[in-house]
């Protein structure tokens, strides 16, 4: 397995391996889901919540491994219970980080206990924490297909009310939107998305697919539909490039994915966005100076 300048040949070589095919398929679906969901996570300032899900999911996964179930089942159970709890805590995003932090710390401790009780092979734990996309089985790919379809349909249904409630909660509520039901639905969607993203990035690195592409995309377009498309493209590109690089190097996929999205975020946030703003000023789009006092 050595890299050649002939990229077609490289891709053929990568595609030859079943584990790489599984990884690419699962990674593509996960990136799609994480890109879409991540946009709303960033818009609703729920990044910390998304992170908490993955750690509550970790406790669930560790328990599942200990009890002989699949780690994914534990992840899904843990993150969904966590999501339900957080959604029921209240509709306001503010003042919730304390409660989330408390639950998060306890979950990690619980996960640690389950791990110490587990006498088997520790690789599974390591892969939950840091991701092991190269170990994804064909069955897991099929599970990911089902989850992706469910999440995309779910977001498609609640798209406009969710956007409205995220941008202007008070007016959406006065207009009769079921805020609690929307909150719970979104949390459930994030919980499932996180559980599958964990397969690629691991519990500790789930931000790299769930938050960074969405945050970067917000600077690329002020129109939600386009920003979501950008978020998906970033997540996809990062995952594919990460798999490609990891195939030819001894370094982990998760590292490449986190590094790529971080570099792109810095570039967009500090180079592209200021440049575009300057151009907008020069072009007269912002004819009046921004006056925050008025």
């Amino acid at each position, binding site marked *: 397995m050595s890299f050649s300048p002939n990229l077609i040949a490289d891709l053929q070589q990568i595609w030859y391996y079943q584990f790489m095919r599984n990884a690419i398929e699962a990674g593509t679906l996960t990136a799609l889901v994480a890109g879409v969901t991540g946009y709303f996570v960033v818009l609703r300032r729920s990044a910390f919540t998304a992170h908490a899900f993955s750690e509550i999911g970790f406790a669930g996964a560790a328990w599942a491994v200990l009890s002989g179930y699949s780690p994914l089942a534990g992840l899904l159970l843990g993150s969904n219970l966590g999501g339900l709890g957080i959604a029921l805590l209240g509709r306001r995003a503010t003042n919730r980080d304390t409660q989330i932090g408390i639950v998060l710390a306890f979950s990690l401790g619980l996960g640690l206990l389950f791990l110490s009780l587990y006498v088997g092979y520790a690789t599974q734990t390591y892969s939950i924490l840091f991701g092991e996309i190269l170990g994804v089985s064909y069955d897991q790919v099929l599970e990911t297909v089902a989850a992706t379809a469910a999440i995309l349909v779910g977001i*498609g249904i609640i798209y406009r*009310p969710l956007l409205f409630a995220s941008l*202007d909660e008070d*007016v959406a*509520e006065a207009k*009769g*939107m079921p805020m609690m039901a929307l909150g719970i639905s979104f949390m459930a969607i994030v919980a499932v998305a996180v559980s599958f993203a964990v397969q690629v990035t691991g519990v500790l690195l789930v931000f790299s697919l769930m938050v960074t592409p969405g945050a970067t995309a917000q600077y690329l377009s002020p129109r939600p539909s386009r920003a979501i498309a950008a978020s998906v493209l970033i997540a996809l590109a990062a995952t594919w490039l990460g798999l490609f690089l990891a195939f030819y190097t001894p370094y982990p996929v998760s590292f490449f994915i986190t590094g790529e999205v971080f570099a792109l975020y810095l570039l967009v946030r500090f180079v592209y966005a200021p440049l575009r703003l300057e151009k907008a000023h020069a072009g007269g789009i912002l004819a009046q100076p*921004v006056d925050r006092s*008025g």
Partner: protein
Amino acid sequence: MRQHMQSEVVAESNRPTLIIGEDLSAGYGGTPVWSGANFSFGKGEFVAILGPNGAGKTTLFRLILGLQKPLRGTLETFGAPPRRGNPHIGYVPQRHTIDTDTNIECLELVRLGLSGTRWGFNPLLHGDREAAFKSLEAAGAADLAYRRLGALSGGELQRIFLAEALVSNPDLLLLDEPLSNLDIRRETELLHLVNNAVRTRGVTALLIAHNINPLLPHLNKVVYVANSRIATGTPREVLTSETLTRLYGVPVEVLKDPHGNVAIIGVEEHHGDIV
């Protein structure tokens, strides 16, 4: 004397009535914030709601929006008890702000004011986009359509919120302190826009404010909420030393200058500026 206090407004009774409250009490957890309120607002009326902080001005809005039930009495909006999500109502909440990090164009928020309550994903709908543009124009904010929400000033944001509230063609506008944090010029601009909507669209506007003077030229009615009671009537009826003295239960004096500005003396809040 009593009709001032209990607000039996006869003036302009030829307008169809939009909101009627009879012997209404409202509060939280069984404790009334105010009680015994009687009022009626007709189509196309511009109404100012004034009173000290915590007197229950926003509570009145919550009742009309159906977010809260009256403790006692009856309230009817559009000929029926209020229900949450009435599409005839446009609402701009108090201390309404948008995070400065919000990288979303204003047009999108206005568009959601129209179609944000509909399920499903339909980004290709151009009808609501056009409606959003028209509403932005009505709110004097067409130039802000493609600006990011997070980059707007307070005055610009209020115009966007007005457009968001107007986009669904409401019959009733509830504006909770839209003038706070605006300087005098922006205050006048926004009032002019609201008044425009009231006059051209026949919208009834209820506007909570702290200073009555900039509103006086436009108003049909004034609602004073203070001391657990509500006084309603035309500005001429309500803004008198007698009515406000009775409402507050302490001596209040209303002074008028030759330009028609009023100064209300004897109450601690700045309901009227000393001229």
